[in-house]
């Protein structure tokens, strides 16, 4: 356990420092609010519309599909490195894994999740 003490120390110092600056800024900084200053910051231009805009569900879908089909790489890399050692067992296993992924892809495709505009 002693090996982790420095890390713990680092965390403590980091959090304490951040907290100190936060408090200091609030306590001793000058305050002169004007209406312009109070509006939410939007790259300098005037903000329009409601604050909470729901992003289209399409973004989520794309993101989740990306995660699903990207993670396969994590499994495929070690298999590729150990390809000879694992032999036919590894090949069959990975083959069925990829086959399942393909089924998933077909499903997603057929369901129209890959089309941005329907």
């Amino acid at each position, binding site marked *: 356990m002693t090996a982790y003490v420095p890390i713990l120390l680092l965390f403590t110092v980091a959090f304490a420092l951040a907290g100190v600056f936060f408090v200091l800024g609030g306590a001793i900084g000058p305050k002169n609010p004007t209406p312009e200053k109070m509006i939410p910051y939007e790259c300098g231009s005037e903000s329009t519309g409601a604050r909470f805009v729901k992003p289209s569900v399409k973004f989520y879908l794309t993101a989740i599909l990306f995660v699903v089909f990207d993670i396969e790489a994590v499994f495929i890399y070690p298999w590729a490195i150990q390809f000879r050692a694992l032999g036919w067992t590894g090949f069959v296993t990975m083959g069925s894994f990829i086959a*399942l992924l393909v*089924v998933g892809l*077909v*499903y997603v495709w*057929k*369901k129209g999740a890959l089309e941005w505009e329907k």
Partner: protein
Amino acid sequence: MTRLMAISPLLVVALGGVLLMLAEAFSHRREEGDVRHTGPSSELALGTAVTLLAGAIMAAAVWMVGPEKLETLPGLAPYYVADRFTLFFTFTICLGGALAALLAGGYLPEHKLDRGEFYPLLTFGTVGAILLAAAGDLLSLFIALETMSLAVYALTGFRRTSPRSTEAAVKYFLLGSFAAVLLLYGGALLYGATGHTDLAGIRAAIMHPAAAKPANLALVLVAAALILCGLAFKVSAVPFHMWTPDAYEGAPTPATGYMAVAVKTAAFAMMLRVLVGGFGDGALASWAAGWPPVLALLAVVTMTGANLVAGRQESVKRMLAYSSIAHAGYVLVAVATIPRASEEAQASVMYYLLAYTVSTIGAFGALVLCGSRGAEAVSYEDLAGLGKRHPAVAIAFTLFLLSLTGVPPTAGFFGKWYVAKTTIGAGLYPLAIVLLLNSALAAYYYLRVLVYMYMRDPAPGAPIAKPMRSGYVVGALVIAGVLVLALGIWPTTPIELAVQAALTAR
């Protein structure tokens, strides 16, 4: 290929799920305004039921061959234990799932929820449940749990447009994840304490402190407590039951039935695996300082609490949700007696779950059958006068409720009887008495349904539940009804099988 024989039930269900998914994707998509009565999902329902029944039949076939004799894949052992315990639970889970699928085949088209995703989700949930019953390692246990739970979360929120269903799904998801995290954390601590993730290794490490790496007992205790909390969440024992009524009420009724039956059965399988396989002996399994008194207390609180609250419900569906909590309490009684009467107590858990499966799915099925488009039967008032208008439905409902109450000669009676017998044999008299008194208490709210069905007439002008017409639902009810009576009148064989399926204590 013979090596796959031992896991063939799982493979059948998993492959069936994949095929169903593809079939659903390629099937005719219903356009808006299409008023055909049967959409794609009706055929899928049959397919799902056939798949799951095939799984159950494969389980029975492997049982006949004898799983001990079968060669399995190398390296499968702790992650998927192909023993009789697994097969028994596979059978029960598949049976419950198949009946739930049949209910869905009638329910979904009737209530304009006719989307085929239901069936692959149900099938994959069943895959998770089977894996859960078979998992002999904390890693595969967790993966199985998540596979099952994710599918069920989606099933709960299946009625997307209904705020209630969505709320139920979110609640279930959050609390379910919380429980999973507790389990995971407990598992991690256990690994830290013993250096093992497989249950047999954990048990060996706890049992033999003189082993190479002695287990840190304080850590083991904390881990056991966390894992017990997680398990209690999953079997919805009071006070970890808060999600259950809302989730059960919000979900579409077939999904509710599925949750009440297959998911709960799998959770109890997991509980038995962990408690008997991992913490099965030594001080941890003693009545002085182990989990049995905790479970006994949980059982008492669960039974009594759930029965008291169930009597106050105005919705039949919610009442059945509380009833499923109460039944979890009855099963917990049997689990608590395991250290004193290992095989018999486990057999009583297994028989009870089988009896509970057919009775509960039947009760939910009868509720499904009572409702029709736009008028789902949920409250007691909806059922008023049903005995006069639709006597066959009412008789079926009565049969399942009597089984849940524990009136002979139904399966539910024998299940309760067997649990009480085991408990008394183990010398836990107060627990048995609480169990039996609770079953008398529960009679009150089950009878209330009978009161409305047979003894009340609907209030003038009130909407009247019109039973739907669906061959699938009727078929499911017939199967469940026959099983309720058959299991109640000839319980010897299932009990002998359950005794054979029990996990060995050493």
